[in-house]
């Protein structure tokens, strides 16, 4: 019974997937309409899944709180704020003044601080990558990053000098020729990988919806 149910889900997923895919290749109004309808359903289901995800978040932190696990005060703040902002946005709309105030004065500064932290982390990681791997590629990676940084901003001394112009020229060559070529090559590989992964799901070889 379990096997037949699994086969049923697989057949269902394959048929739905092929109908949506067909809509991209064949200009048949019936197929296109059906594909769009299925996509709209998928968006609705994704919204419901987001609510379930938030419930999962609340449950995990609720458990930490009830068992006073390490870092429980953070869980308490998270759970409280989640309930407050969810209630505010549900009852008074997502753009009400209090919800916007919380967003602008709590979430935006915290996220901006994390982005600032990223800059520091990357500088440290740049040095660490040379120490850890110590090969030609890591040296090339860090050297290229330094040249691009030097060529991107103004210099405190020696502005408009020959050295600055030379660095800017090298930076432009690296960014506009070498980096673009390399990125395109990587993107071709990624695209092929994405297509074959999608096809494996469509053919029922991969079953991310469980077995």
């Amino acid at each position, binding site marked *: 019974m379990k096997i037949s149910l699994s086969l049923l889900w697989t057949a269902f997923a394959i048929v739905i997937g092929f109908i949506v895919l067909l809509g991209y290749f064949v200009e048949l109004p019936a197929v296109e309409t059906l594909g769009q309808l299925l996509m709209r359903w998928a968006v609705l289901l994704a919204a419901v899944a987001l609510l379930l995800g938030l419930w999962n*978040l609340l449950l995990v932190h609720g458990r930490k709180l009830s068992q006073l696990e390490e*870092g429980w005060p953070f869980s308490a703040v998270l759970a409280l704020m989640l309930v407050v902002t969810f209630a505010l946005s549900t009852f008074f709309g997502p753009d009400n003044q209090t919800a916007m105030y919380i967003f602008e004065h709590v979430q935006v500064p915290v996220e901006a601080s994390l982005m600032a932290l990223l800059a520091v982390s990357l500088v440290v990681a740049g040095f660490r990558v040379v120490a850890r791997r110590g090969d030609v590629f890591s040296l090339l990676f860090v050297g290229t990053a330094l040249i691009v940084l030097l060529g991107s901003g103004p210099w405190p001394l020696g502005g408009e000098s020959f050295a600055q112009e030379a660095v800017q020229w090298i930076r432009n060559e690296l960014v506009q020729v070498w980096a673009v070529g390399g990125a395109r090559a990587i993107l071709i590989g990624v695209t092929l990988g994405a297509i074959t992964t999608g096809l494996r799901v469509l053919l029922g070889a991969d079953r991310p919806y469980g077995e």
Partner: protein
Amino acid sequence: MDFLAFLVLLLIVVLVVGLPLMLRRTRVEMRSIEGYEVLSKAMERAVEAGERVHMSLGVGTLMGAESATALAGISTFSKVAEATAIGDKPPVMTAGDGVLTLLAADNLRSAYARAGYSHRYETSSARMLGPTPLSYVGALPSVLGGEHVSLHILSGSFGAEAGLAADMGERAGATVIAGTEDVRAQALFYATADYPLLGEEVFAGGAYLGLRGTHRASLIAQDVLRLLIILVVIVGSFLGLVGSLL
């Protein structure tokens, strides 16, 4: 009807379906990818030492262009979960999307059932950490630091926050294996992860962790198509050069 796109798709389907049948009795040598070689050993080590494996499916959704990376991540995660189900501490999967969290939970349950440890499945092993990229990354230390994670696998969609996500694993003392589809995030992983997966390597997890023949076939299909594309680019560039000279 877009015939060229349809033909390319048909060619890939033929390769993915036909190659496993053709190569049934042929031993296919795959090039070594350090990240996946380390992954197998690190999983064994985590199980033996009673430490936890954390796998991140990233901050993307299943609805966008990044869905393929998430699907590849789920296939890798399923294998990782099966291999580490026997450990004292169950593996933890986190995502920034509700759909991915549900899928991961379902895959985790299936993996435990396949390994014969259904009773050890915990619903809290699949978690949504935060619905935005930075809220997700902001919540990562609570998992990495507080739950004795020794292996931090990032296989999903990431943006600029990729650097922080990998760096947090490094700071927690975990082995970091990371791959994504975004080129900029790959550069960040190169600097911050112990074992970065570059380009299409993130899609090869299934083949390297010993899943079905179609995974190996899809790798070969990718290589065949890549060679064709390289050939088209070289011939096209040469013809363009000749055309401009004439």
